[in-house]
């Protein structure tokens, strides 16, 4: 798509584009390039020396069973967060859609967790499940279950998944609701007249029509689970216990900034770059197709 009519100034466009280009070049492309370059070195943490190792950092990474495990952890974590937050959101949206009066109020009450930072969500859920003072863990103990996510890896994973998904439900809810509103009433009524039950209507009409949104949300949620959940992990588990919640993005931070192994961290960044690149390509391939809907 191109504009047929444009202005003819020579210098103005450069002046307009310059700030964006400058900031992007300095704070995006230069570091991104550096990430790739540096992944071939082991720098000393103080920045005084750098040892060239070629693919050495990558060899080190991929021979570390814990790094490979981190891929699996990330996959499990992202799938759970995505599945739970999208499922819950869809359910809520379907119900909110059925309600004519008050759907605005419900929407207001359901969307504000979007504004909560993942790190804050982490603190809130940590507080509820703290093994010593948390109210939920106290009631669980009263029921006979000793909750301690500091020691138990599965409980830790459960907690971070719930905290991450909780926050994301609002976002998904909004999109699903908009998508549901956009479905023509006539289609539904026609199916109802034909005698189709609620579930049948849902699976044969509504869900397929929601699929563009669903797919879009899938990618957005995956990216959210991959990256933005750093705050949740950092506040609740710091990747523990025994690296049960060590997702890839957290490991980049832990190895680079806490462990001062900048070479390994740079190599991990490059791997992440590739992963995101693939995800982005998939999303844009899809969006291209959507435009033709």
């Amino acid at each position, binding site marked *: 798509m191109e504009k047929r009519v444009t202005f003819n100034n020579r210098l103005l466009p450069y002046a307009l584009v310059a700030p964006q280009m400058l900031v*992007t070049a300095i704070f995006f492309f230069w570091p991104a390039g550096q990430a790739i370059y540096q992944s071939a070195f082991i720098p000393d943490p103080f920045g005084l020396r750098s040892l060239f190792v070629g693919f050495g950092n990558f060899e080190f990474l991929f021979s570390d069973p814990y790094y490979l495990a981190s891929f699996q952890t990330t996959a499990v974590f992202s799938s759970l967060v995505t599945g739970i937050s999208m499922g819950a959101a869809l359910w809520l949206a379907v119900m909110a859609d059925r309600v004519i009066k008050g759907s605005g109020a419900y929407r207001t009450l359901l969307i504000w967790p979007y*504004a909560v930072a993942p790190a804050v969500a982490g603190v809130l859920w940590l507080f509820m499940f703290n093994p010593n003072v948390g109210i939920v863990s106290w009631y669980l103990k009263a029921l006979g279950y000793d909750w301690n996510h500091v020691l138990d890896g599965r409980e830790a994973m459960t907690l971070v998944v719930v905290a991450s998904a909780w926050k994301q439900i609002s976002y998904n809810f909004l999109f699903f609701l908009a998508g549901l509103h956009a479905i023509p009433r006539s289609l539904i009524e026609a199916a109802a007249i034909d005698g189709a039950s609620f579930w049948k209507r849902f699976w044969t009409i509504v869900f397929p029509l929601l699929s563009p949104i669903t797919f879009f949300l899938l990618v957005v949620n995956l990216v959210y689970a991959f990256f933005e959940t750093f705050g949740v992990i950092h506040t609740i588990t710091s990747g523990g216990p025994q690296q049960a919640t060590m997702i890839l993005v957290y490991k980049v931070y832990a190895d680079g900034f806490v462990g001062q192994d900048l070479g390994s961290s740079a190599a991990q960044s490059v791997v992440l770059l590739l992963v995101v690149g693939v995800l982005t390509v998939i999303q844009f391939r899809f969006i291209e197709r959507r435009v033709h809907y």
Partner: protein
Amino acid sequence: MGGMVEKRGFGLILTHLGLIAGIAVLCFPIYLAFVASTVTQADIVRPPMPLIPGSHFVENYRNALFSGMNAPVWRMMFNSMVMALGITIGKISISIISAYAIVYFRFPGRSVCFWLIFLTLMLPVEVRIVPTYEVVAGFGMLNSYSGLILPLIASATATFLFRQLFMTIPDELIEAARIDGAGPIRFFFDILLPMSRTNIAALFVILFIYGWNQYLWPLLITTDPDMNTVVMGIKQMFPSGDDYADWPVIMATTMMAMLPPVLVVVLMQKLFVKGLIEQEK
């Protein structure tokens, strides 16, 4: 299901109940945090903590605001505000003029610019933290507002959005402007900007929340507690040695950290929802 077809009473009640249950799950953690911020440490340390708000609201919030743990909360809120507004205003400004140039001008290097912008979409800062950190350190921008703001406006998501928006603006407008003898600058200010108002407002909301809720990046580049932002500062209020976590103060800080973005979302709900949904078209 644009609207219910069968309005059976029982089904409707179930639906309402379901929604209320959903809201309860969504809201309970925050309610609990609020209660925790109004009671004393002793109440919390001996569970179960009370479930109705206590009477120490003023005391705890005052404590948090003015002394905090390693930095007073008012200071952290201020830093957050500067960062969020800086990111919002900065990103919108450079993006809108950039998109304007790409859409409405033909100049050599235009498609290069466009593709470079395209490349930055969806590559979040978390993927390039180490080298970005070094660039910022090299400029001496650690522990500074510019260090907090600039790397986060480098991705061109907003530029792309404005581009999409401008593409939908009819050509007739620009022809009319030209006939009137208006130059590109007049066109921008008199026609384009007003037409983009709602999108700018929606983007303002989204970017403000994005900026306010930044966590990893401020964590890395601030070593001076005075430069903490409130969202990343909360974690540092947890003890690292033998001290107890001062839960009421931490929860009070948490409530305050949530307040501005939540207010923005709730008050500008329509705009925000519209902006979120349209930006993905």
